[in-house]
């Protein structure tokens, strides 16, 4: 299926440029002008991908993006397992995001752990008219009564909260005082704020800074510090990702004192300013708090990538470089330990995947971070884009990940993505649930790269085996040969509606 085997880079660039010009033709003039800035063909050596990002989505185009609430409740806060997160406003937001993100955890749900529950103030018309602060206060009382082992509460604002002028900060302060200094965190992540999930991450990070760190600064550490204490930042433990990462850090001799935020607890958040190093996986969603800890507590932070053996080894060495020889030796020991597994995985799957092409469109770190894992399997990423990336994401992508001629699409619209895939015909598309069935109908193999398609973990060496198996399973499934009835001529994937 891949075209790249027969085409030169110059030809690919030419094709991709034509493709961009072609998709822009569907738009009204004003929209075409705006969208043109988000689409580009990557030129090797450039410091970024040449696209604008983190700008408002255009009305009516079918953006794939979500909202600030999704970024705060759905990503950053939701996984903190011993706190109760109130979806404050109407019932829907909490309902649609209820247990949908596969943030694995261990605990007694409903008693001391609350991740896969949906707590909502279920706003009614009277709450909009008269305000919801009294209701919120009562909700906190009812939580205290029914869930006495909760370790904290966060208030995740939905759209109406900011529009009707509720003072959730005042309620939080008053209730915190009433409950002997209990951690109660108001979060201003109303869905209309910002342009995507991204602002929600930032707001959620700031809320931890202002309502957790400042409050817990006086508390003594709950453990005895060691020179090898690190915190995992920006791993949401999707399908257990943080666990298959943590095990490697511990095996190299480090001590992981906190996970942000998959399978995390309030105590772990509070512990983190005592870390010697913050290791940051999802830069996009948690760079803010990492920078804050660097400035305020002098904790350095280090980005890493645990997808695929090449990047894992590189990252283990990079993390070890912050420590003494014991840890550096530990990193080499870990790399050596897993060499046999890595070799076996590559020996088994690379022959089945060699030369296959991939197009990605995901959020957070994945539009770049997974590229190395595909390359370890002999695959090539020919198009990628960020749902809610900023320019610093595109810089990292350009400088460390993508090849010359890669098609880049920021905040891609449904129409663009379908057209691009239809024309480029990659062997695999990696994106989200909203895109999955579109491409499968077209006969293109697909993996969800937010939820790992209910598989995972994909992080770490253990995760790489699953990743390789899953990509093989998607691409080489017999079903794709059956999409066309044998009495019909071979057809290319195409779209009906948008033609």
């Amino acid at each position, binding site marked *: 299926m891949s075209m790249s085997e027969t085409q030169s880079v110059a030809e690919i660039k030419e094709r991709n440029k034509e493709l961009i010009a072609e998709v822009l033709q569907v738009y009204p003039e004003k929209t075409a002008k705006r969208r043109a800035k988000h689409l580009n063909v990557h030129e090797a050596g450039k410091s970024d991908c040449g696209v604008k990002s983190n700008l408002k989505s255009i009305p009516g*185009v079918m953006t794939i993006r979500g909202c600030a609430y999704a970024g705060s409740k759905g990503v950053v806060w939701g996984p903190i397992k011993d706190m109760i997160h109130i979806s404050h406003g109407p019932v829907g937001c909490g309902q649609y995001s209820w247990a949908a993100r596969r943030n694995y955890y261990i605990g007694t749900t*409903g008693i001391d752990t609350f991740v896969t529950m949906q707590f909502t103030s279920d706003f009614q018309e009277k709450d909009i008219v008269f305000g919801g602060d009294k209701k919120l206060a009562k909700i906190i009382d009812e939580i205290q009564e029914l869930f006495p082992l909760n370790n904290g509460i966060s208030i995740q604002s939905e759209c109406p909260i900011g529009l009707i002028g509720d003072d959730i900060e005042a309620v939080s302060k008053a209730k915190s005082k009433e409950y002997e200094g209990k951690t109660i965190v108001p979060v201003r992540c109303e869905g209309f704020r910002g342009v995507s999930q991204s602002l929600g991450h930032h707001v959620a990070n700031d809320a931890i800074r202002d309502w957790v760190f400042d409050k817990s600064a006086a508390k003594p550490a709950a453990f005895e510090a060691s020179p090898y204490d690190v915190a995992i930042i920006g791993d949401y433990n999707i399908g257990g990702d943080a666990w298959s990462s943590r095990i490697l850090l511990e095996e190299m001799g480090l001590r992981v004192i906190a996970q942000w935020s998959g399978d995390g607890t309030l*105590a772990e958040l509070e512990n983190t300013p005592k870390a010697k190093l913050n290791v940051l996986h999802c830069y996009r969603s948690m760079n803010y708090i990492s920078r804050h800890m660097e400035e305020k507590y002098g904790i350095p932070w280090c980005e890493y990538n645990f997808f695929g053996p090449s990047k894992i080894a590189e990252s283990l060495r990079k993390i070890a470089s912050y420590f003494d020889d014991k840890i550096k030796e530990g990193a080499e020991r870990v790399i050596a330990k897993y060499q046999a597994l890595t070799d*076996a995985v590559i020996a088994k799957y690379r022959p089945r995947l060699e030369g296959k092409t991939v197009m990605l469109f995901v959020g957070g770190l994945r539009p770049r971070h997974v590229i190395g894992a595909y390359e370890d399997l002999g695959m090539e990423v020919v198009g990628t884009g960020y749902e809610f990336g900023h320019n610093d994401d595109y810089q990292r992508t350009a400088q460390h990940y993508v090849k010359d001629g890669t098609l880049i699409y920021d905040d891609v619209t449904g129409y663009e993505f379908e057209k691009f895939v239809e024309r480029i015909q990659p062997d695999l598309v990696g994106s989200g649930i909203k895109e999955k069935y579109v491409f499968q109908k077209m006969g293109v193999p697909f993996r969800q790269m937010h939820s790992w398609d209910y598989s*995972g973990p994909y992080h770490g060496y253990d995760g790489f085996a699953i990743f*390789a198996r899953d990509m093989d399973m998607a691409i080489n499934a017999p079903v794709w040969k059956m999409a066309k009835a044998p009495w019909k001529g071979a057809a290319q994937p195409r779209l009906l509606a948008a033609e």
Partner: protein
Amino acid sequence: MTQSAENVLDHFELFRGPEYQEMLVNKRQQFENRRDPAEVERVREWAKTPEYQEKNFAREALTINPAKACQPLGAVFAAVGFESTLPFVHGSQGCVAYYRSHFSRHFKEPSSCVSSSMTEDAAVFGGLNNMIDGLANAYAMYKPKMIAVSTTCMAEVIGDDLNAFIKTAKEKGSVPAEYDVPFAHTPAFVGSHVTGYDNVMKGILDHFWDGKAGTAPKLERVPNGKINFIGGFDGYTVGNLREIKRIFGLMGIDYTILGDTSDVWDTPTDGEFRMYDGGTTLEEAADAIHAKATVSMQEYCTEKTLPFIAAHGQEVAAFNHPVGVAGTDRFLMALARLTGTEIPVELERERGRLVDAIADSSAHIHGKKFAIYGDPDLCLGLAGFLLELGAEPTHVLATNGSKAWAAKVQELFDSSPFGKNCHVHPGRDLWHLRSLLFTEPVDFLIGNTYGKYLERDTGTPLIRIGFPIFDRHHHHRFPLWGYQGGLNVLVTILDKIFDTIDLNTNVPSKTDYSFDIIR
């Protein structure tokens, strides 16, 4: 190391390995600051008590694990039932991402819908420009035959006026003046997803019948012999509507399905992505005014739509998601009466087969206690079926059920000796139900995917019937309606009963004397 290339371990096996178990214990002991396990155990037991239930039921402000969604979800459901129609939701964009994900997770299908992507500036100045640009873009890109506009709570709180906005957008040339843009205000803080369905269905009919928001003459009703059918918000819409069409075909009834979602949520994998497929044509939607009567399969999904239709001179009939023999009998007899047709012998034979199946199996269901939760109409349909199977629908709960609904459920209980000790719970959520399952336990639970948490915590086996079903595949392709549908529901219930008996009798030399080969 437990992972291997030869036998790749998935998450459910990998983390049970000794390295991970040790790691997780250390994490907990050193860093998590968890509560004392004895204390956790004490509270876990306390949460099963009548004392806890009393506090739980005294809740006035907090909702926990509700079994309902918001209006705009139902709005999108209703809109995609019309031919080549693009739902356009005016307000924040994240909502649309949620509706699309929610439907795709249930139907395993694409779900197309656009947003006007309102942000802070729109919150201050209103979303008119978003409407103008949004309609223009959606029209140019996705070439729908109709754009159905609804709202998120953001647009409702700031008071955007859809009628005025759409008029202005047309004046500005976003879409042609005569282009169909029906609309409905669907505030998320009123009612639930079934309300949103109702509002959009009414909005679309209002558009076609009553002068397209003042831009066309109102239609004059010229009665014909056709029957309109409205399915309502229904997770089984694919199987159900196809079964309804088959039944209408067998009865020789000339019909229009208003909001036919059976194709758009069941498109083939054949190399083509169909953004739109099937659906009620716009001509049929307009012509539906002339029908003799309109039948709604779900009363609580059409509380505004049916009176609107009745006001245009049609006879209307509402059912409560009939499941089983008596419910289907009433439905078919109503159709026969409305159309002056006979119920054909084929359907009579199907009825006989369902009765036959019930006779074969009822000994396994008779006297069993069930808890049911879901949308108001589905609850009524299932409770009615259980009663005719000799089972007891001990708890019937709808988070979006009203007092009038509760009275109707009580009436149903009162109509059968098996309803004697049954209780209806309007406006309650699944945390209330959790208490009930401890204090007044039942044998089986019927509900959506989220019921699995109740199954885990209370040990009540879950029979998955409802919306959404995320963790089992393809059941939406099979009907619950008609005698054929009743058979599907019967088999679904029986399978769980037999599986449960087997699971409880499979310990060698302990319980296996009941591990029967013939049941």
